[in-house]
């Protein structure tokens, strides 16, 4: 079984996410009226295989597996999948899996590209505990932001159906829009707290000579992202921004994160020496 690497386990996990995505399409076409566990167990299978893949890689490296873009992306997806499984246990939140599966599948397929996973040198970059903490908190924050975006998508769908008097709003087994918005807000707050902690720990890390912290593209990008989330949270909590604009912002911010995460990582001298 030596030929069966951690990437194979991850490939199987992505297949489970893909099956869940296909099933999610059926659920969507049926108006989220079948409150069954099929989707949930597909994600459970995916996350289990995903965990095996990460454990195998982590044991090989003797550290948290976040040394390249493949590992960072799989860690982000794992945090997203796990959070989805936990939140799906809330009443009427089982369909969260149906909304999360497409994100897990598409980003999972992206992560499987061989160029994202170059061979490691003899000394992994993230051997220091502070570095592991930095990477883990940042990636868990991305996971929370991702799940917030998924809950926000559920909110916008329900909001649209209620606004335009679609019967699907009543027939679907989705939570109330007030509850969806609250979950979105809480996840964004959790993500923001983890992100802030990750940035603070990152600032404490030793840097290679001649590589200034505040000129690094990833640091600038992270600071920008931090400000974007701060603005959205302050506007929602203290300035009475509408639920629709807040949830739309949460989705757009996560899409921006997904689209630019790889690029900034690639050009970052601190993260991609």
């Amino acid at each position, binding site marked *: 079984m030596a030929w069966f690497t951690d990437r194979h386990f991850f490939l199987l996990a992505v297949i489970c996410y893909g099956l869940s995505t296909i099933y999610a399409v059926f659920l969507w076409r049926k108006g989220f*009226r079948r409150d069954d566990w099929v989707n949930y167990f597909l994600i459970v299978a995916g996350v289990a295989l995903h965990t095996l893949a990460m454990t195998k890689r982590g044991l090989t490296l003797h550290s948290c597996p976040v040394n390249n873009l493949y590992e960072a992306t799989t860690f982000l997806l794992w945090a997203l999948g796990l959070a989805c499984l936990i939140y799906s246990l809330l009443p009427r939140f089982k369909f969260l899996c149906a909304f999360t599966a497409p994100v897990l599948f598409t980003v999972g397929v992206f992560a499987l590209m061989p160029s994202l996973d170059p061979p490691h040198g003899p000394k992994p970059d993230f051997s220091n505990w502070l570095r592991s903490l930095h990477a883990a908190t940042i990636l868990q924050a991305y996971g929370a932001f991702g799940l917030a975006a998924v809950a926000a998508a559920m909110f916008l769908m*329900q909001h649209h159906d*209620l*606004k335009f*008097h679609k*019967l699907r*709003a*009543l*027939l679907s087994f989705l*939570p*109330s*829009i*007030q*509850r969806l918005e*609250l979950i979105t807000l809480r996840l964004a707050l959790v993500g923001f707290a983890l992100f802030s902690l990750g940035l603070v720990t990152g600032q404490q890390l030793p840097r290679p000579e001649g590589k200034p912290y505040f000129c690094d593209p990833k640091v600038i990008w992270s600071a920008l992202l931090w400000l974007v989330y701060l603005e959205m949270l302050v506007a929602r909590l203290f300035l*009475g*921004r*509408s*639920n*629709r*604009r807040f949830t739309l912002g949460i989705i757009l911010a996560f899409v921006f994160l997904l689209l630019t995460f790889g690029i900034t990582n690639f050009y970052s001298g601190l993260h991609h020496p």
Partner: protein
Amino acid sequence: MNSVVIIGLSHRSAPVALRERFAFASDKIPAALQTLRDTGIAAEAAILSTCNRVEIYAATTLAPDAAFVELKKFLVAQHAFDGALDDELYTLAEPHSLHHLFKVAAGLDSMVIGETEIFGQLKDAYELAFTHQFTGARLNKAFQRAFNVAKHLRTETNIQRGSVSVMSAAVELAEKIFTSLAEHEVLVIGAGETSEKTARALLSRGARGVVVTNRSPERATALAAELGGRAVPFAQWPDEFVQIDIAVSSTAARHHLLDRATLEPLMRRRRNRPLLLIDLAVPRDIDPAVNALDNVYLYNVDDLQGIANEYLSLRKEEAARCETIIAGKVAALLAANRFAPKSPAADV
């Protein structure tokens, strides 16, 4: 061997004038059942008498055709009816009688398909007969199975899903917007009957309280007292929008009482909390343009009726599925020892 037969009339076969003529008062039912037994028409019997149907369920050793003649004579004599009866009265023998009993229990034969009230009424009718020992093995098994099948259909199909009235549709909408109605107050604009019923439906589902306003302050005060809420002068109802989250409007005003220009600043004062507006008035009290505002969900009487109608058509679609399930359950019951198939049923 006894077989189960039914004779009756319902909203499908007879007008209300005839149904009320044949209705049994519940205190008269034991005596009527005793007569059925004493005359040898039925060994076991139960009588269901509601506003929509009067039916006698009997287990008899008579051949179905003979039983129907006797049961018809019994019904006519009991109510001293001297008019003519044609298709108003229907008769059913096995297996159709059992199929009908199962359908009645599941609400499939009701005026509003899938309604649950009939289940309780049928249970009461059976318990009355059972308590007075007018039922035996045959009817007990048939009724118990009918109740089980009704429960099965309720959980396994969508036959009872959804709101089929304007009031219940409004409540369901509120529950799709707000997590719990216990934290939300309802404003009733115009103390009419429809808005009162809607407010009552919302209160019954746990709404925190109700505020009533009406052009006639006396009527507002009276309704507020009845609903356990408070009344506010008609000129001051816009101020209440800061507190309340659901507004039900049904006035006789000829123009819009609430338009976008009025609501926009109020929504800012509400810090954009969701607001459900239910406009039951014709002509409408609320300008449809307010639905374009963020966090405002406006439904008028046509929208709610549309929801109720769609639910009703969904129930009708589901009824076909229920019929198939019932056919299977009846066949299983007939295949059981005490319900071996008899001669072909005679439906009249």
